[in-house]
């Protein structure tokens, strides 16, 4: 496909969409169950009123505010309806062209919407994820054309470097540097992998991106393939995300049909085939070398690094491995320029970040904010604070590898550096709000049980250490711990953190360490008085 043809297709599709006076977009993500019934009810209503030629009902991606779903968006009015049921179809259709349905309407000035800055999620909820025409009409794949026709691979890499984009999977390694290393690596054969093994319980950014704008991820991957010089790509997705997998398969087929993927992409000499590999429920596979083992069909057991995958990865060849959200950031950096991207965020953490805001917070859902926004703004403005008049206790970031940040640090900006200084991590973007009714010891025991279960067993510090830490935490939970247990807990955490092979073990103690730092009293309160401890011990 040539550029003119792409423009023609995009224009045709836009014309066909513009032919409808009203668009009703229904969120068809996993977060809005029952959306099929709503779509059916709306279509029936429109047929009964003979409005088929003026009103278009479509399934769209995630609109973010899952807590108040199912969400329906009316365009061009920009009216957003909440908690829609199939019975509301009549009122919604009747109100088209008139005042919106008051009882369903979300205030347009809701901070949840106004305080966000959407870049990766800009098209999420506004296009049909199952239509490549929609993505083209919204300017999709133009970044790919720009890269292929106006830039050499080295130019693409320098743009990514200038933008300051860092890996969105959690570690925050500079993306451009990784690309440059793979591009420089010797040898003809190289691989490209997209890490969609979002195993952190409490996070669903990658699921939403894959479900809402699968083509943006593909476009980012194709641009990356051009930049580093590879013809083979894999997307590794969790099997727990069947809808994301289905939409991704469709997106790959559609892109191949238009020669945006496959042989001689866009008439250039770039070839790329992308295959999907399904995960099978192993948290450790989010670690890049374990993921590579899994793609090769084995148990997900991490390899020692170095050599890093950029030098020796899949089948021993140089491999570029980036997270879903990282790839989804690429097209806009190419289109809008690295300066635009670098102007967003903080000094060292550029751009925006998508977070899954959940736990005890009013407006839980999927959000995107510029880096550097304070936790307070995220939890209380965008999230609407804690429901039921309870008090905020902590916000947990980074899942089982992260930490809990107490109220005293609510004004800290969200960036790789500041979260690290607070003893947590950015992680992939899970953000769980915890209120005063939850016990930190309980939450930490939960995370440690998770890490213990998910430890692959290769290295001893992680395999044995997580089990021992869990046993100690259980003693605290049951109020049978001793002062010596507390000392041993701290010693073990330090040991596991510094001697484990991979990120899973190295970061598993983080939740314990951060709560020992900020909520030490909760541990002390659970140390049994000596006499009681003696009675209970065998």
């Amino acid at each position: 496909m040539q550029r003119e043809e792409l423009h023609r297709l995009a224009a045709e599709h836009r014309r066909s969409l513009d032919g409808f006076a009203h668009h009703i977009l229904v969120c068809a993500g996993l977060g809005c169950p029952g959306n099929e019934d709503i779509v059916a009810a709306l279509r029936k209503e429109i047929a009964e009123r003979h409005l088929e030629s003026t009103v278009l009902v479509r399934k769209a991606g995630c609109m973010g505010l899952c807590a108040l779903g199912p969400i329906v968006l009316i365009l061009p009015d920009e009216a957003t309806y909440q908690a829609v049921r199939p019975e509301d179809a009549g009122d919604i259709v009747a109100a088209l062209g008139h005042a919106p349905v008051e009882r369903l309407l979300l205030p347009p000035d809701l901070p949840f919407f106004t305080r966000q800055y959407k870049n990766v999620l800009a098209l999420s909820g506004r296009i049909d994820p199952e239509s490549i025409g929609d993505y083209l009409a919204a300017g999709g794949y133009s970044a790919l054309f720009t890269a292929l026709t106006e830039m050499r691979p080295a130019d693409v890499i320098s743009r990514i470097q200038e933008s300051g984009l860092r890996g969105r999977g959690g570690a925050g390694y500079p993306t451009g540097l990784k690309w440059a290393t793979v591009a420089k690596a010797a040898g003809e054969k190289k691989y490209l992998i997209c890490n969609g093994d979002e195993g952190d319980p409490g996070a669903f950014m990658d699921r939403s991106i894959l479900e809402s704008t699968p083509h943006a991820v593909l476009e980012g991957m194709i641009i990356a393939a051009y930049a580093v010089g590879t013809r083979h790509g894999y997307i590794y997705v969790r099997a727990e995300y069947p809808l994301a997998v289905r939409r991704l398969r469709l997106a790959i087929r559609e892109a191949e049909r238009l020669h945006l993927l496959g042989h001689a992409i866009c008439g250039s000499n770039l070839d790329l085939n992308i295959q999907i590999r399904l995960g099978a429920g192993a948290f450790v596979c989010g670690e890049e070398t374990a993921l590579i083992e899994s793609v090769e069909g084995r148990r997900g057991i991490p390899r020692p690094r170095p050599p890093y995958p950029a030098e020796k990865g899949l089948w021993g060849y140089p491999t570029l491995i980036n997270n879903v959200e990282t790839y989804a950031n690429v097209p806009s950096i190419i289109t809008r320029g690295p300066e635009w991207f670098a102007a967003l965020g903080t000094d060292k953490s550029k751009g925006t970040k998508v977070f899954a805001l959940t736990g005890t917070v009013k407006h839980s859902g999927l959000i995107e904010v510029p880096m550097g926004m304070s936790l307070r703004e995220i939890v209380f403005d965008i999230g609407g604070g804690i429901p039921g008049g309870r008090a905020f206790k902590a916000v947990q970031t980074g899942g089982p590898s992260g930490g809990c940040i107490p109220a005293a640090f609510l004004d800290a900006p969200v960036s790789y550096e500041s979260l690290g200084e607070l003893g947590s991590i950015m992680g992939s973007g899970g953000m769980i709000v915890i209120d005063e009714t939850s016990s930190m010891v309980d939450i930490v025991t939960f995370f440690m049980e998770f890490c213990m279960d998910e430890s692959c067993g290769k290295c001893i510090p992680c395999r044995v250490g997580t089990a021992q830490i869990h046993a100690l935490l259980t003693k605290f939970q049951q109020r049978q711990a001793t002062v010596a247990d507390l000392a041993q807990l701290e010693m073990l955490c330090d040991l596991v953190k510094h001697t484990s092979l991979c990120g899973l073990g190295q970061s598993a103690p983080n939740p314990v360490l951060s709560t020992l730092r900020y909520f030490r009293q909760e541990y002390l309160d659970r140390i049994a008085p000596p006499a009681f401890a003696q009675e209970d011990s065998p």
Partner: protein
Amino acid sequence: MPAKTQAQHSTDDRRWQLLERAMQRHDFRPDALIETLHAAQDAFGYLDPSTLDYISSRLRVPPAKVLGVATFYNHFHLKPKGEHTLTVCTGTACHIKGNDRILAWVRDRYRLTPGGTTADNRLSLVEVRCVGACALAPVILTDGTLAGKKSFEEAIAIIGEWLNDAT
């Protein structure tokens, strides 16, 4: 038990053909083992020893490696499931919102622990680490249908109704 030949299997059952086709799609490459196990579980509902043996011989992967992979990943089940499956999400958000209460209730009411099936083969209980619908926590799935944002009382009412309705 020696693995059956392909011919025996394909005459037996269409499910073996599905499995065969999945392996064919990947040119019987040993690295497509996980994809093949997915296909086998989709076809049969679980992975039994004869299926694993068959995959081992077709992909030329040692039986120990096939079993190793099948047991490493949580998604694969080596035992058949009951008529109905209740899936309880135990991700962080669901934990905070009290899904452990639902698990405890199922344990008492149906004498079921995660991974188990009732004696009458009616109900299986599966615990999953996050289905990614955290904003709807706590989440349960009744035969794959998601129910979220339910109180403990609402959730057990849904389960009760589902099991009665479904018979």
